[in-house]
């Protein structure tokens, strides 16, 4: 069976800066795959490159075994949706929640718009009272939930999730993670998910890639990470840092 998503030797260069230096990975149909690593290591760039939003200079992206060309058409976005890292930049502040959810439906020619909007709001735990608020009138976490609703509303088969819950408090985070797992099993979705929280990645993903400086450090299973069966020092440092802050002098 071919992978739902396959990336081969992907390279991205911004004005002479090599943000991705040849990264490969493949995600099986229905799998949830994690990306962790240093800030600035190219995780968002990798997702953006898949979505056709980064200057790829080399390498290939394939969806369901078919190579994706340089442009991305409507059919691609019907299949692949992305939740961006900063919900502030990705949602127009002067648009109402209603309009933000309606737009993708209209672009893709859906008809049962009303029912879909209500269901999408309900799924992410925002009551219909939020429907006519402007996105600048929402808290950080409320905005992120709108962004997730907007990605799910088109019923894509592949979701690219860039730190989907880093703006959420623990209780809403648990609800959103449960929702994501639920839709993944209901609809057989495939996830590629970036998170700096190792607990979230081991909870949500089967396998993951650790990245640093535009490159893969190591590739491992979530259970190996949880069991600390890791081979690289950088991964070990991440695990140690996950244990929390240690005051000077008490270390």
């Amino acid at each position: 069976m071919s992978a739902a998503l396959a990336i081969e030797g992907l390279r991205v260069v911004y004005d002479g800066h090599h943000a991705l230096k040849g990264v490969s990975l493949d995600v099986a149909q229905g799998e949830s795959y994690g990306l962790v690593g240093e800030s600035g290591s190219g995780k968002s760039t990798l997702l953006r490159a898949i979505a056709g939003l980064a200057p790829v200079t080399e390498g290939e992206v394939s969806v369901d075994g078919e190579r994706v060309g340089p442009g991305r058409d409507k059919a691609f976005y019907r299949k692949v949706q992305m939740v961006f890292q900063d919900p502030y930049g990705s949602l127009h502040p002067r648009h109402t929640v209603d309009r933000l959810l309606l737009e993708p439906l209209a672009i893709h020619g859906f008809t049962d718009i009303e029912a879909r909007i209500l269901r999408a709001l309900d799924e992410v735990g925002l009551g219909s009272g939020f429907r006519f608020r402007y996105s600048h009138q929402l808290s950080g976490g409320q905005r992120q939930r709108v962004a997730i609703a907007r990605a799910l509303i088109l019923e894509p088969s592949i979701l690219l999730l860039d730190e989907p819950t880093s703006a959420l408090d623990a209780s809403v985070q648990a609800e959103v993670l449960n929702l994501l797992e639920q839709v993944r099993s209901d609809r057989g979705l495939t996830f590629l998910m970036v998170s700096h929280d190792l607990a979230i990645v081991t909870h949500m993903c089967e396998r993951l890639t650790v990245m640093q400086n535009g490159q893969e450090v190591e590739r491992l299973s979530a259970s190996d990470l949880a069991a600390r069966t890791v081979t690289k020092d950088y991964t070990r440092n991440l695990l140690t840092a996950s244990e929390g802050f240690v005051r000077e002098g008490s270390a």
Partner: protein
Amino acid sequence: MTRLLTVDGLKVDFPTRSGVVEAVRGVSFTLGRERLGIVGESGSGKSQTGRAIMGLTPANARISAERLNFSGIDLLDVPARQRRDLRGKRIAMILQDPKYSLNPVMSIGRQIVETLRAHETIGRAEARDRALAMLEAVQIREASRVFDLYPHEVSGGMGQRAMIAMMLIAGPELLIADEPTSALDVTVQLEILAILYRLVADRGMGLIFISHDLGLVSSFCDRVIVMYAGRIVEELPASELANAEHPYTRGLLNCMPRIGADRHPLPVLDRKPEWAL
């Protein structure tokens, strides 16, 4: 401990099309030269509390308080000019949405330099050196490359650190940090916390640390305030967070994923209407 800030009965209301949103409904606390954590549900009023102290409440909102006092200054009754002078120089806030809050048409480095020059008489070359040193202090690799980048050209965590650098460079007495490390990988996160820790311990800065990362708050802060629906429902020493009494706080602790724990689905909160009274 010297008291830096007194907040007594703070309220923030927003009139909207579908009625008044009571974002903050009578919040009271004091802050000395310490690390005070604020945790709480999304939408519970954490950011609006910070913004009110900083003087960044949106113009259409109604704000009131019995007292809102910073170092002897009544913040609700201070001339606009003096308020502006306080902001940045003596009170600074790391906003939750750093990339959105940075000026999109000015390079990162120039924004830091301008902040510095607004508060200190200092030559261009020296300002540049100090800005670069600050970017390095917040663990940005290739600081001289990043200096010339625009906000849309940096990663989420780099934008967050640029904002931190900009707020720290003026040496504020009170820093409100709203989810300052939410976009950072864990190793960089600890480096940033170590910087904040030293500013409080060595320089006597007061720090309000808003975060949803309970593990981080309990290991980093001295005290914690727990907010729910615009109010404080519990206040306790950070080290005691694991023994919190309020059912909301207990529920919050229980629903975090843990490495190696296999809980599918994660437990969620059963919110009780009486928590919001």
